[in-house]
């Protein structure tokens, strides 16, 4: 952790962030509230710890705040603000979301809810095997697509062609790969925050709900589902925490993959334990489930990342020892 922010400060900020996120406001208002609470200063003083703190709160509260835009922009060396958004990679992928085609640039990616109010967008364009970072007018990426599974519309698909001369090269900053790793680490913390929330809901339901004259929490089939969820969450969380010890792209990929898997397992088990009520629009569970489905796809998913990790091992010719005593 950065020496500039101690554990007590982080705990205080986490409480403040959670309170701001829990308010039912539009994402743009939540973003502004977080900046007012010192989000930008935190990210600059302790990029990974600060992001982990905020993203855990995102997962817990299920807020649609545009913090991923800030994590990626900050890693790329671009000044962050509630008016700056980022075009993210297409679902299940981590490669730059755009490539040149003649005088145009073809964009296939995702934008966050911040895109609605942003003035500047950050775009990574891959050409000839290298990634260049540019900025452009955010209105170029305002997506007409209104659909999607997530009622909070935290992320939407954007598929456009823009003129190449609309892009302004960004000053040299962090690499795209380092931005991918930072995003993956932050998203792992978000997925685990959401998974812990789902597990807590299911646990409470199992204790409160009686059938056959006893709490359903007393039945082994229910207990084992909840236990398996906790084990996957703890294993993934341990790796997500290890990512905060220093930049390591492979570890970040593992953390995101494990967190996505833990969140998927927990969502499945929690919904089964919640049973009928968990399938209704009336219970809050579905908001977390749907956000999890969306966040899992960002920067590589639990389904796409194992192959990426495996190819990495094959090209290395060995399984590296990542975690040292």
């Amino acid at each position, binding site marked *: 952790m950065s020496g500039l922010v101690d554990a007590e400060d982080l705990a205080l900020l986490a409480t403040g962030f959670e309170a701001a996120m829990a308010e039912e406001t539009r994402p743009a208002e939540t973003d502004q509230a977080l900046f007012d609470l010192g989000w930008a200063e935190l990210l600059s003083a302790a990029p990974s710890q600060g992001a982990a703190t905020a993203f855990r709160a995102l997962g817990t509260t299920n807020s649609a705040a545009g913090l991923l835009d800030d994590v990626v922009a900050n890693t790329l060396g671009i000044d962050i603000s509630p008016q700056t958004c980022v075009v993210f990679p297409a679902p299940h992928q981590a490669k730059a979301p755009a490539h040149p085609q003649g005088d145009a640039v073809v964009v296939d990616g995702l934008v966050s809810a911040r895109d609605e109010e942003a003035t500047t967008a950050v775009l990574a364009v891959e050409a000839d095997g290298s990634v260049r970072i540019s900025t452009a007018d955010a209105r170029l990426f305002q997506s007409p697509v209104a659909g999607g599974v997530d009622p909070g519309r935290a992320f939407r698909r954007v598929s456009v062609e823009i003129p190449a001369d609309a892009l302004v090269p960004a000053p040299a900053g962090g690499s795209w790969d380092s931005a991918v790793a930072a995003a993956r680490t932050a998203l792992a913390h978000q997925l685990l925050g959401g998974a812990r929330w789902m597990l807590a809901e299911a646990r409470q339901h199992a204790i409160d709900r009686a059938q056959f004259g006893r709490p359903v929490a007393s039945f082994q089939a229910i207990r084992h589902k909840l236990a398996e969820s*906790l084990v996957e969450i703890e294993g993934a969380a341990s790796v997500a925490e290890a990512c905060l010890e220093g930049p390591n792209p492979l570890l970040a990929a593992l953390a995101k993959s494990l967190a996505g898997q833990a969140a998927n397992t927990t969502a499945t088990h929690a919904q089964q334990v919640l049973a009928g009520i968990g399938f209704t629009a009336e219970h809050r569970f579905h908001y977390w489930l749907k956000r999890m489905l969306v966040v899992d796809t960002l920067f590589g998913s639990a389904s796409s990342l194992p192959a990426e990790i495996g190819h990495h091992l094959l090209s290395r010719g060995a399984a590296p020892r990542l975690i040292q*005593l």
Partner: protein
Amino acid sequence: MDPETFRRDLGAWLDDNAHELAPPYEGAGSMDEQMAHYSYVKRSLYDAGFGRYGWPESVDGLGGSPLLRAMVGEEINLRGLCDPNPWTMIEVLVPTVIEFARPEVAAALVPPFLRGDEMWSQGFSEPDAGSDLASLSCRAAKTDGGWLVSGQKIWTSFIQYAQRCVLLTRTGEPNSAHRGITALLVDVDSPGITYSPIETMHGRLDFAEVHYDEVFVPTERLIGEENGGWQVAMDILPYERSTTFWHRGALLHRRCSDLVAHLVANGDHSDTAAKALGHAFQWLVAFRSQSRDTQHRLANGQQLGVETSIDKILITFAEQQLFGAVRDLLGGVVEFDDGIDAAMWRTDYLYSKAAPIYGGTAEIQRNIVARRLLDLGPES
């Protein structure tokens, strides 16, 4: 001793002595060969000092953090210098014996075990007391100067090589459950002990059925309090799920690397192979990370407890993913092939089936997580 310095010195010493420490047999070797080489490696490490760090001076150790022990076991397993299972017995039994046995008994008996001169075993399970350990019935009756032990134990590992056994006995009423259990440190050459090895499905005599017929155990061999054996057992189990698993995790890492090398040699860079490999590797890393956290809690003097069930479930999952991938990706090697490599893959694949059973079954671990970590109240 600073852990970083220790790790560097240990690595250098192992490099310098790589030839002498390598197993003299091909593949897994026979059990006799394995045990002889285990003793040799243990003795070499002890004489060089590395095997004494992380243990207190009261048992001729050189002190220092338990992390140092974890590092030694990790290196031994990563380099494949000897079979991991005999090695684990020290980590399972010695910390608890040091804490609960009479100091003069620990001081006399532990050093030969650390030096590799002795082997110890663990007499917990019985034919009618497996997952329900507290129902054990092997009886210890009070007699002049000690106890007379009569009954039967099962799954006692390495008894045919062992000089001592940490034994759980019934000293209370038959239905006294966990309240009437006493732990004793028994000499295996005591009159009245007989055993018959049990062959495992991977073709080894890893454990045995042991009969105790009025075996005399002197008073000073009491571990903990009389009728306080459950506390001793509960102290042992977290060790069984901590340092021991850290070591085994290193072995799994080596085998994962072996799998990668095998795939590369066969030119298999398919997405199918990559996905199965990545999936297995990610759970190995999750286990290793969780186990590292456990090692640090242990090194900071924290009491390990029920949370180590998470480590057990994770390593079980990782082990099964890994050897499941081996079977899927090696194209019939496990099922059909001859030769040392195939035999090793087959052994490891079959042994992975034991992972959800030994040291508390997968179901018992989930029960512990549900009751103690999720606080779900009593089971119906």
